[in-house]
């Protein structure tokens, strides 16, 4: 198999005396949907936060390899460069949209770096030069493409906060995709969605994997989503990795059953 897209080695995160993530290693492959599952407090979100630069890990390496073989050591990168240069995007369990800005603006913000360069760091933007207008147009087309893809085109000019919950989730994914990521990290994308909406989400994630060639790493509690769409599942419990494999392998792993259901002592 080729070099994994993301390779996490011995990732450890301590908060004072508490070890939230303890020497966890796993790989995420290109064109795969990889799910991280585990009971509450297992360290899933903490691991996520380390990968996306929200936290600086206490120990371990997080290596991202692009298709052109350029290598990024995420744990050493300045926070905003993880999205800007290494091309890792993420969404949040509790949605973090720019509520006061319109749907379209939320998607334009995600293309900030390209627009900043096109506007010569604002100078051309103030004078609204043709080159900047072109860049704006391309950015807008991309935003429209993703609005269409997730089905929120009719709400383009509404403030993001005015959207219903399910649409906000979709917008968050669309916004993450507008940053042109190679790795998309989703923190509980199906939380709060009704069965029909989670079905739509499954379809969307599959199509992102297949048509955009983006690796997806997700945390999810909704097993109907996890088991159906994941190519690869990693199970964490008390900060440690207890299982790693396909849906079937994980489902039959005694360690996983023990973590979720407990075992009867005899």
């Amino acid at each position, binding site marked *: 198999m080729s070099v994994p897209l993301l390779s996490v080695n011995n990732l450890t995160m301590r908060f004072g005396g508490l070890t939230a993530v303890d020497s966890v290693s796993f790989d995420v492959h290109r064109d795969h949907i990889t799910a991280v599952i585990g009971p509450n407090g297992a360290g899933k979100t903490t691991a996520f936060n380390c990968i996306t630069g929200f936290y600086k890990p206490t120990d371990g390496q997080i290596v991202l390899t692009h298709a052109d073989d350029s290598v990024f050591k995420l744990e050493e990168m300045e926070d*905003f460069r993880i*999205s800007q240069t290494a091309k890792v995007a993420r969404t949040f369990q509790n949605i973090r949209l720019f509520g006061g800005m319109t749907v379209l603006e939320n998607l334009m913000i*995600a293309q*900030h770096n390209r627009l900043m360069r096109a506007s010569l760091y604002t100078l051309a*933007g103030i004078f609204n030069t043709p080159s900047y207008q072109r860049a704006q147009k391309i950015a807008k087309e991309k935003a429209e493409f993703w609005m269409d893809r997730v089905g929120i085109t009719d709400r383009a000019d509404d403030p993001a906060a005015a959207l219903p919950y399910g649409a906000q989730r979709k917008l968050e994914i669309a916004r993450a995709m507008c*940053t042109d990521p190679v790795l998309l990290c989703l923190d509980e994308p199906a939380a709060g969605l009704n069965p029909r909406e989670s079905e739509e989400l499954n379809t969307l994630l599959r199509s992102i994997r297949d048509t955009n060639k983006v690796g997806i790493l997700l945390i999810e509690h909704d097993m109907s989503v996890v088991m159906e769409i994941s190519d690869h599942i990693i199970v964490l419990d008390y900060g440690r990795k207890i299982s790693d494999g396909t849906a079937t392998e994980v489902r039959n792993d005694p360690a996983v059953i023990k973590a979720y259901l407990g075992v009867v002592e005899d």
Partner: protein
Amino acid sequence: MHYFLQQLINGITLGSIYGLIAIGYTMVYGIIGMINFAHGDVFMVGSFVSLITIIIFGITGTSNVFLGIGVLVLVAAISMVIAGIYGWTIERLAYRPLRGSFRLAPLITAIGVSIFLQNFVQATQGARVKPLQAIISGGFTLLSSDDFVVRITYMQILIVVLTFLLMAGFTYLISKTSLGRAQRACEQDMKMAMLLGIDVNTTISTTFVIGAALAAVAGLMYLLYYGVIDFYIGFSAGIKAFTAAVLGGVGSLPGAMLGGLVIGLIEVFFAAYFSSEYKDVAAFSMLIVVLIFMPQGLLGRPEIEKV
């Protein structure tokens, strides 16, 4: 009636200057949630830089309005750049290391920076007031009666027009350019902006530079309007602009402009009809009243607790 009209003109002129300074307060508050108490002193530095530039170029009074304006634009550009460097440096040295610290910490360094700038200018430029002869003089007589003449000077027109041009340009910057979008994004959720690849530190620095540059223009206009400056002007002008920002609703740009005009008018009318010694009392009483009865200000958004 004539007297009232004249005071209205004076009030709007003064209010424009306050409004320009108030924008710096409001922008910085919007983006990092701190009151930059050194902002008034950046205005003072801008004023001094303008004065020094004028002296170096040996600019003297001219009756040719267009030549005068051309020269002043050049002076404004120089003092905007230098004040911008001050703004950037202050943010870099005094505020950025404290970001993420407790809320009061940058407020205290801001006061420290303010004291430093006052003493720095006092030490290098001397404590005496610096006079400047009028560069653009003359004006129009709008109305005249036997005992009173209503005049609007070229200088007043210049101040108001320039202020509104800057405001318009600035509003465009914030609402339409990608820098403005990034600033609004940082204002709402800095961490999320960072995760979308926005360089938050640079965006904040830029905000300080823009605020300082606008304050420098205000400083130049103050210098030209009053013709005297000293190292202490930043204090009272700064506090009044702060009042204007609070009155308009801290964080709101049109609010800052509106608040500036209201404070300018209150001050001028109070001085005209009641007592010029107590004009500051009127302006600051306004601050107290607003804070008690309308803490979100005229155009501010009500504070919503984030869950």
